[in-house]
Structures are given as C-alpha cells and as structure tokens.
C-alpha cells in the first residue's frame, strides 16, 4: 500500500464515522436548539 492510498482510506474512514455520528445525533434530537441572544440562553 502506498502513502496516498493509506491516506485516502483513512479519509474515507473519517467521512464514514462523521456521517454515522451525525446520523446518530440527529436521531437522538430532532429539536433545533437556537440561541436566545438577548439573554445568552438557549431555547428550541
């Protein structure tokens, strides 16, 4: 295996993990928590 192929595999691996994590979090919480700027607090 060459260095560029190894790096390409690792990069693809990163994107798979990223997609899986974002999908997991999206399932955990479908509420958009936006910031209440006036009070510096959060609200959905």
């Amino acid at each position: 295996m060459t260095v560029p192929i190894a790096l390409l595999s690792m990069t693809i691996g990163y994107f798979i993990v990223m997609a899986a994590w974002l999908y997991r979090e999206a399932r955990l919480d479908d509420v958009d928590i936006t910031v209440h700027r006036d009070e510096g607090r959060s609200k959905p």
Partner: protein
Amino acid sequence: MTATGWGWLFLVAYVLMMLGIGIVGMRKTTDADSFATARGAYRGPLLALAYMATIGSGATFMGNSGISYEAGFKGTYIMLSFTGALLGSLFVARRLKFAGDRMGSLTIPDFLGDLFRSPILRVALGVVSIFLIYYVMAQLVAAGQLFETLLRVPYKYGITAAMVLILIYMVIGGSHSDIITDAVQGFLMLVVAAFVLIAFLVGLGVDGVGPAAVNAALPEQQRWHVHTDPNNPLFANWWTIALLFGAHLGFVCLPHVGNKFWAMRGTSEIRRFFVLASMSGVLVSLMTFGGVLARAMGLDLAAPDRAIPGLFLELLPGWAAGLLLVTILSAIVSTSDGLMMSISQIFANDLYRKTWVPWRGQDPRDPRVDRRSLLIGRVTMALVGGVAVAGVWTPPELLSVLQWVGIGGIISAAAGPLFVGLLWRGATPIGALLSALSGFGFFAGLHLGPQFGLYAGISPWNANPFSTAAVGMVVSVVACVLFSRLGTPSSTRHPATVSSTGASAEHENAS
C-alpha cells in the same frame, strides 16, 4: 509587473477588506458576550470556513509542506492533523454548543469551570492558556519571514505591520471580526490548495505526467511505498503516526478553536458545519503534497518551509505569487486573531469577571461588570499584541518549545474534563481537576522537561510533541474516569443533556 509588485497590490486590497470587516464587526458588538463569542450569530457554512482557517494556521502553508519537502511522501501523514482535529470536534460539538450557550460560557477554561462548578479548574486552565501567546509569536515569526521573502520588507517591520492589522480589526470588532475575516481567509486558502493539488496530480514541473511521475523523481527513501523513518521522530513508526492523529483529536480543547461553536446560530447547523468543514479541511490539508512536488522538482530552497512559495514562484506568473502572499498571511492572521481573543478573554472573563468579581462579593452579571470586562478584553488584546511583537523582535531560541507548553499543555490538561465531562454523566469536579493535573504533568515530564534541557528523556517522546500530547490526552481521559469515583457529580441534571424533552424544559425555564 513583478511578483513583489503584485504582492503589494493584493496586500493593499486585503488590508482594506480586513478593515472593512472590522467596522462591520464593531457594529455587531454590543456587549462582552458578543465581543468574546459572537454568540448565535452565524450559520454553519460560514463558521465551517472560519473553523478550517483557524485550525489551518501558517503551518499548513509553511511548516507542513516543509515537513513533506524534507521527508517525502511519508511527510504527508501530517495531513492527519486536520481529520484528527475535526473528528475530536465532532464528538463534542453539539453538547459543547448547547451547554456553553446555556451557561453563557465565554472560553473553554470558563466552560469547564462552569460545567464542573470549579473556579480552581477555570483558573488553572486559564493560566496554562496564557502560554498560547507563544503560539501567536510563532505565527508572527512566520509573517515576518513572509514579508521579507516576498515583499523585501525587513522582518521587524513585517511583524509590526501584521500585528497592527490584527489589532485594528480585532479590538474594534472582536469575535465578529474574527469569524468573518477567518471565513474570507478560509476561502482564499481553498483557492491556493486547489492549485497545489492540481499541480501535484498533473505532475507540473517534473518529467512525465501524474503523481507517478512525481514519485519517480524522488529519492528512494522519500517515495510513496516508504511509510516510516526511524530517524525522523514524527514518522519513526506507525505508533507515532497514529499519535500524530490522536493529538489533534484534542484540538477542540484549545480556547480559540472550541469557542467557535458558540457563534453558531443553532444546533441544527452542526450537520452542515461538519460536512463543509470536513471537505474544505481535507482539501486544504492536501496542500502538504506541494512539499513533495517541490522536492520532486528539485527546488533548491533556503529553508524547507519555503516549499509552497518556491513552487508558486517557479510555476506561476507574478500575480499568483502575490495572491499566495496574501493567502499565507491570511492563514497566519486567522489563527493569531482567534488566539489573541482567547488570551484576552482569559483576563477579562475567566480571571476578572468569573473569579475576581465573585471573590469580592459582587455580581458578575452586573452591567457595570460587563462594560468593564469588555474594556479589559480590548485593552488586554492590545497588550498581548505588544508583548507578542516584543517577544519575537529577536525570535527566542525555545519558541517552538514554549509554543507547545500552551498547545500540548491545554490538550493534555483539558481533554479529560472536556470529553469525559460532556460525554459521561458520572464526571465529578475532583475527577476533572486531578485529570487536568495528571495530563499536564505527564506531558510536562515526558516532553517539556527534556526540551528545556533538564534531562535527556525518552525517545521519541522527548522530541515529538504530538505523541506526548496524545498520550497526555489519554492519561487525562482515563484519570478523569478513575478519579471521578472520588466525588459526586456537580449536578443531577447534566447541563449538556441534549434531548427534545431537555430542550423543551429549558425553553419553559427561559420563558
């Protein structure tokens, strides 16, 4: 027109644009919170570019390409620093954003102090963060060398000019200026990275076509089938390469990196943020292949760090070299400004508002305290700028080591409290404090001691800050889990709980 002439032309346009953005930032800055974090003001895609530029720094153009110029293809493993930094951020971004907004935290030390309700943790991490001024100094040195190489401006004038520019737009516009300028700078970095990647893929400047031609033009030990080199501490074996990636997982702990999530408009922006930050981050990190191409072309450079400038001067007309100057300056400035903001907030918020004011029995939420905090932030930023310029008037010999006191120190100390504290309900204040001490102690003993010449140390740990920071990070995380058995969690309801019900409950409380 010569490369120097184009360089001046692009530089003037760039400076005017940065100053314009500074004025926009000034109009958006209303209080200490908006100055320090620009809370909730920007969408994911813009922040993604700003984030990539903040992580990127001058090292992307100079240091990293210099590494691959010297080491050949194996040196391109340095691009794992980007994916490492993004992956670490991914795991905590949502909770960091939610909990930080909810508690009104302004810096990472402040956030951890709030999360664990521990003023000692806030102050301890704040003090270590002050060492990030050496990171600013290292960036300034790179800016000075750039001015000297491409514009024939003496080094001392170069560092002064770079700092004056940063100070003008940061003091007036704070985090708003930081984020907007970083996004513009990130876009410029993408343009240059695209050119370098195309040049490598085509094999510009070497006999033959494509990456195979680039590979064939290299000395045997630098070709793409050689992955490690026992004589190179960074790529001595597969462990050091894995730890290079591992150390960057903790980059989100750095105050100027982690605080960017609080500027995001809402948690739903996180998906778009990561998709764009990842694509742009990977593209920019591929710039390290420019160092390989420069070596294959046989460019004779005064220093390895000049691989990318050398490539531009060799392959492109004068205007492109001018564009490169502005882009590298962008990368340097975009990291320095965020660092200076974080350091100034250590004084204005962590030490003054959250520590000194309550200690004196006053209310940190008092509007007068807020105004004073904003003023301290601006004044401290100017002072930090002055100290940084004075510090590198004659660059100190131990600058790279001192820089790692801040970077490695924060990563080793804060990783346990941040990752464990956000991902596990069982983390306790005593666990967080002891984990910070363990991680920092491990990093200092294994890397900083030998680097300051106190003892020989163990190879490659004594010479490789990435490996040591990565192991320090693991020590910190493990220590946080183990020592948390000694105390009780600071809250029965974890502030980073992100669920529909939790968010609704918070909404009801807010209304």
